[in-house]
């Protein structure tokens, strides 16, 4: 154990080891932060949430910080909710019923058009459904009639760019542009249409047929950037997956690497010590397992049995225990077995298991630690690889699954680079962190390499 302590002291002399340790430290901090701020259950709910959870977020937009690198600022999402007092409300009786007017005012200063515009209604009434008329006022004083619709009880929504009448009206009045462009474009656009900056207003006038009618409405003008990490095709905040990817990757990598290397070493030690039948049995099993292709088997397990990350982890460990590592450890143990101190242990009457665990195994720890650390990135990438094949854990948000979503939805073709690059960079940094530490440890623990 003294060698381990010395080695740890020596790490300070290797800049790449320091850098690796620093990266690992950061990852641990991020993991703890993720697990505290977004508890496991909440993360899963958010990640599987669907439209209801994420309806305020724009689809496939890059993170907000890219605006710092652009002269043309992209819009951020504007959410105006009448429940939170974001609308001016007027109610006045009208015959048996009443009229409700919601008046939304917002300032628009971005250099690009919004992504889409939706209004979400929350209505309750007795018998006849209320009737809403929506109007749009531009900063230069034009009035554009949006729609006249009857409202259903409960939740309903009006999506500007899916309404055929509105699309036709915009084409007639403004030109052949999408609705969200038509409503914001400055008059006489010419070659390069720009949004008109200034204060926009939206009026929702509702005619209700009974005084008990209740109405709330939420106006969402979706931007073209969102949050720290952007969103995906289901409007999900990628931040969740990027944050939660860290603990998942660390856990998978560490458990798989530790599970395989340590068990492999112990099995090799047992084989060498007992030799004879045990040894040749282990050797034969190793040969059979080496003949089984790892990835195809994992694909089969993922497709046929279970996609749970822990099942995949178990199978990975099982298949790697009898991998090529056994031969390497075996060669070293063969030498250790002949050492005088093992003979001495035998002479004083130490049992087989005592010799294996107290005399053979500790000798190989210096070789094991760098191996273990270097193996971690392999397993982190293995998890990502399986996810990219569509065999990721069905509930957990992981980096690999983000990459898979991005590739499956054509992110490289549609120039949605942030979607691939963010998780890929995190994987890369994680891999590099462990690899750099592992390589340095290898040089520290195996001095013969050091001169090289």
């Amino acid at each position, binding site marked *: 154990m003294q060698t381990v302590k010395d080695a740890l002291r020596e790490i300070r002399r290797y800049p790449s080891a320091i850098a690796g340790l620093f990266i690992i430290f950061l990852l641990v901090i991020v993991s703890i932060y993720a697990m505290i701020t977004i508890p496991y259950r909440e993360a899963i709910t958010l990640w599987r949430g669907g439209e209801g959870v994420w309806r305020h977020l724009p689809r496939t937009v890059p993170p907000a910080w890219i605006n710092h690198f652009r002269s043309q600022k992209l819009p951020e999402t504007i959410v105006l909710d009448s429940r939170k007092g974001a609308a001016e409300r007027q109610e006045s009786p009208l015959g048996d019923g009443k009229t409700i007017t919601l008046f939304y005012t917002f300032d628009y200063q971005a250099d690009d058009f919004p992504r889409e515009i939706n209004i979400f209604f929350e209505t309750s009434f007795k018998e006849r459904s209320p009737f809403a008329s929506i109007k749009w006022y531009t900063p230069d004083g034009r009035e554009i009639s949006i729609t006249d619709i009857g409202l259903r009880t409960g939740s309903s929504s009006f999506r500007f760019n899916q309404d055929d009448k509105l699309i036709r009206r915009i084409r007639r009045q403004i030109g052949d542009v999408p609705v969200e462009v038509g409503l914001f474009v400055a008059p006489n656009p010419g070659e390069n249409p720009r949004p008109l900056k200034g204060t926009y207003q939206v009026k929702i006038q509702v005619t209700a047929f009974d005084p008990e009618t209740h109405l709330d409405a939420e106006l969402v003008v979706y931007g073209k950037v969102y949050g720290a990490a952007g969103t995906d095709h289901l409007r999900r905040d990628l931040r969740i997956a990027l944050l939660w990817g860290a603990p998942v990757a660390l856990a998978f990598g560490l458990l798989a690497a530790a599970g395989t290397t340590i068990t492999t070493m112990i099995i090799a030690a047992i084989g060498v010590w007992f030799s004879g039948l045990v040894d040749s049995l282990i050797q034969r099993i190793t040969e059979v397992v080496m*003949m*089984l292709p790892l990835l195809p088997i994992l694909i089969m397990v993922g497709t046929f049995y279970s996609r749970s990350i822990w099942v995949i982890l178990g199978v990975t460990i099982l298949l790697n225990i009898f991998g090529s590592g056994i031969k390497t450890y075996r060669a070293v143990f063969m030498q250790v077995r002949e050492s005088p101190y093992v003979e001495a242990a035998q002479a004083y009457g130490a049992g087989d298991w005592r010799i294996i665990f107290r005399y053979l195994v500790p000798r190989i720890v210096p070789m094991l630690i760098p191996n273990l650390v270097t193996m971690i990135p392999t397993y982190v990438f293995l998890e990502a690889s399986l996810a990219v094949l569509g065999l990721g854990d069905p509930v957990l948000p992981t980096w690999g699954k983000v990459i898979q979503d991005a590739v499956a939805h054509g992110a*490289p073709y549609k120039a949605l680079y942030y979607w691939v690059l963010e998780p890929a960079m995190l994987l890369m940094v994680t891999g*590099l962190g462990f690899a750099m530490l592992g390589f340095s440890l290898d040089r520290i623990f195996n001095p013969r390499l050091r001169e090289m």
Partner: protein
Amino acid sequence: MGRGMQMSEQVLAIPQKITGISFFQSTLVRVLRYTLVRGVTLFITVIVGVYLTVLIANMGGYVDQIRKGEIRENVTIQVMNNPALRSLDPDAKRQLIDERVRLEEKRLGLDQPFLIRGFRFLENALTLRLGFAQLMNSNSGSRQVKLILLERLPATLLLFGVANLFIFFLSLFLALVLSRQYGSFWDRLFVVLSPSSSAPGWFYGLFLILIFAGWLRILPFGDLVDAPAPRSPVLYALSVGKHLILPIMALTLSSIFLSVYSWRTFFLIYSSEDYVELAKAKGLSGRAIERRYILRPTLPTIVTNFMLTVIGLWTGAPIFETVFNWPGLGRTLYQAVGLFDVPVIVGSTVIFAYLLAITVFLLDIIYAILDPRVRIGA
């Protein structure tokens, strides 16, 4: 197989040239005896490995149940949608469905118990009668697993053959150069960059696709040739060449640094041996030292690694081929798993197991010939 055999024959020819006929004769007997023992052991290993694959692929018969459900559904839809059978009463229809399901199950051999089917499967697999795919087709429309796999093999061989050979020889060459100028800028650069190899090839592939196909738009996103494929063979080859650039770049990036680093370290360890020092003291030229005192003792390791490279060819890479949309064995395997097409899965694994066993077998023999320190037959 052609290329692997050729290469190994060349390698086999080396010791004769170096050491002469007498050495070859004295080794012949022990090599033959050893060959026999190894051959039998490896064959048993292959049998066990293939049977395990069959078991896993069939997951104790569960796949069959899924298949049975699927058959029933298909037959039901067929019967329900057949206008000629519309006038039948429900009971008669049900009987007809049951009858057709039974026939269909018999056709696919699903009526026998799994254990027997497993062994039949094993026997067929070992004799390379790979049977018919359940759902997949070859491009020419055949259902034969052998044809499906053979059709995909050239694409995989082309990509991984070119890439792996390129990487192998390039890294050997670079490693020799670097080991000569130990401590130089380039040497340190490769040492520093070696951890980058912890990322797999498809990962670099993604980046390269983003840069060269998505952003610069100078190279294709993936696939084997342009669509539609050019008619003239020259243009066809050029088009394939263009599609090869990104995948080969990705594979090279993902392994070259680590590969050069380990070879260089390996050569450095060997060049610090006493006999190399002696050769230097005798005043031999650098090239002669390299050839006779460094490359020759490291030959077994080089051959092992070369053979492992050749093995790597056969597996293809499901993810890499999927990312690059490359119509090879790896992607076929992945598609087969997605379709629960057990014969195709078992077929590719069997072929892999055989090729691996043959390679290991050849490797053992070559080892015995090249390295007199290996105690064979013990």
